[in-house]
């Protein structure tokens, strides 16, 4: 198991805070009708997403999801361009054409968020095939939700990856719901990870709110996958604090349930872990948190002064 040093943990803490503040800001914008469309926030899932990405090599690849802000921030992203994209600006990652559900940055191996639940499973196979074929030594981590694991694409992709021994980690962020439907009403099993058996590959279930556990497990699994042993399924149990998307009365769950998960705040957990283990001073972390918050304000300022894409761009970039 890989050792974690202070630097890594600090960076992880930073990205988790970036994710949290980013989404709080986005939520604020939505509440005021300043962003159009919809968005899916991952508040509460920051450890699951960020720590998994940080356990990868910088040039490894990921496919992200509709609930992808923490994922792509975890992979390393320019917050200005990301915020600009949310605001539909020309300086955004997708020149304002993609929005929240399509943040992509191929230059850092982020192959894009996906508006289609389960849409990334087979793309991840293809990306992994390229790595295998070109012998790049890189691997792919495919994010998806518990709900997505009921799509046919999940089955086809895990099976193909297994048969071809593709270097992919299929990483299920199980936040217990797919929109409004609880896991118990969408599958008859407790752990998504048992589905690994259908493909003759290893499956693991971890506590997704524990950044340390996530990091260590993904490190271990990444090494296994990188050695050419084929794919692995990892299920990270976590919880989204907010509604599914912009408008969600959350009648399908109790306030108590939500509160109980808020007590397992992954950011606090990491904070306490570092402090308790003498890896950082409270002051240092509090200071860092402030910087993170400011980074988001800066991103907003950047986005705000950015232009809208020109109307002429609407017909550009359909074909290469």
């Amino acid at each position, binding site marked *: 198991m890989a050792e974690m040093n202070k630097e890594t943990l600090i960076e992880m803490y930073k990205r988790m805070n970036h994710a949290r503040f980013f989404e709080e800001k986005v939520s604020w914008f939505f509440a005021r009708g300043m962003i159009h*469309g919809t968005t899916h926030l991952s508040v509460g899932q920051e450890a699951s997403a960020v720590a998994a990405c940080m356990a990868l090599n910088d040039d490894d690849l990921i496919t992200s999801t509709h609930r992808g802000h923490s994922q792509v921030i975890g992979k390393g992203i320019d917050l200005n361009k990301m915020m600009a994209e949310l605001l539909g600006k020309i300086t955004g990652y997708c020149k304002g054409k993609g*929005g929240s559900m*399509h943040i992509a940055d191929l230059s850092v191996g982020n192959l894009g968020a996906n*508006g289609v639940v389960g849409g990334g499973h087979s793309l991840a196979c293809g990306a992994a095939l390229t790595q295998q074929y070109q012998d790049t030594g890189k691997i792919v981590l495919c994010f998806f939700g518990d709900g997505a694991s009921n*799509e046919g694409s999940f089955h086809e992709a895990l099976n193909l990856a297994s048969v071809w021994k593709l270097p992919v980690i299929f990483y299920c962020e199980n936040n217990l719901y797919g929109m*409004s*439907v609880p896991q118990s009403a969408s599958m008859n099993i407790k752990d998504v990870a048992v589905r690994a058996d259908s493909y003759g590959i290893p499956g693991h279930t971890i506590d997704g709110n524990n950044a340390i556990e996530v990091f260590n497990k993904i490190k271990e699994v990444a090494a296994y996958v990188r050695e050419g042993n084929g794919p692995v399924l990892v299920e990270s149990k976590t919880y989204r604090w907010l509604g599914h998307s912009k408008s969600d009365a959350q009648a399908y769950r109790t306030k108590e349930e939500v509160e109980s998960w808020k007590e397992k705040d992954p950011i606090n957990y990491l904070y306490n872990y570092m402090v308790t283990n003498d890896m950082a001073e409270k002051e240092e972390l509090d200071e860092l948190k402030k910087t993170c918050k400011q980074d988001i304000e800066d991103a907003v300022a950047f986005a705000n002064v950015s232009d*809208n894409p020109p109307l002429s761009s609407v017909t550009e970039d359909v074909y290469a």
Partner: protein
Amino acid sequence: MEYKEMTYKDAVNLAMTEEMRKDENVILFGEDVGLYGGAFGVSVGMFEEFGPERVKDTPISEAVIAGCAAGAAVTGLRPIAEIMFMDFTTIAMDALVNQAAKMRYMFGGKAQVPMVLRTPGGSGTGAAAQHSQSLEAWFCHVPGLKVVVPGTPADAKGLLKAAIRDNNPVVFVEQKTLYKEKGEVPMDDEFVIPLGKGEIKREGSDVTVISYGRMLPRVLEAADDLKKEGISVEVVDPRTLVPLDKEMIIDSVKKTGKLILVNEACKTGGFLGEISAMVSESEAFDYLDAPIVRLAGLDVPVPYNPELEAAIVPSVDQIRQAIVDVVTNKR
């Protein structure tokens, strides 16, 4: 007939509710259609009225949603299946196209598949390329399917009731951006609009404009504006694309001699081409004294930025201008 003002969404809800009260073989299933009431709130209250046996949440599994509807229909139920966004019918195509649409014919007429697949299409909600498509043309190219796109609350009610009572698989394309639009809706629970009957939404003599769904209000607005300028526009809404009310279209073109077609789907390969070609090979061809003009969506994926998004579908201004150009014989 008693009328009540309600939204398009509520009219869809009412049609389902009435039919479910009448016929217990009618059931509804799809993702989050139960307690949650559907992603767009269309089925709100139905879970409470009909319970979990008749209003069923499914896992996120579009292929089996459509296939299960086909299998249930061929064995005696009349399922209504909801696919949350039309874009995700891409995952349900085998079940719809190879199974539901073909079973009757393949089996020599011995099966019938009375199912409705409801799904909302269209852009305008800021949901970008994978949540905004208008793919009705695909389904129109599949014999065995019927295809309906209501443009008003009343039509939504009357056509959905007809679709549920129809013994064939019907793709019922709702319009996201119309969900909250209001209109007068007949409260008679036998108010059923036959599939295949278009409606002249406004009579006119200078030019025929055919449109449906989300673009219909825009066309009507343009027609209103132009009335003041002395241009008389006939607005024809086919309402069902398959079967298509060819007669109504041909008659109107024979009367006006000019034809403009408006929808929001990508222009290339869209259903407007079919209407244009149908007219061109009909007796109406000889009455045409101007080229047939299509005003459709740009051939691009739907962009996120609201200004770009708005720019890809015909605006009232563009529609008005096109009408003026055609009527004054400008190309």
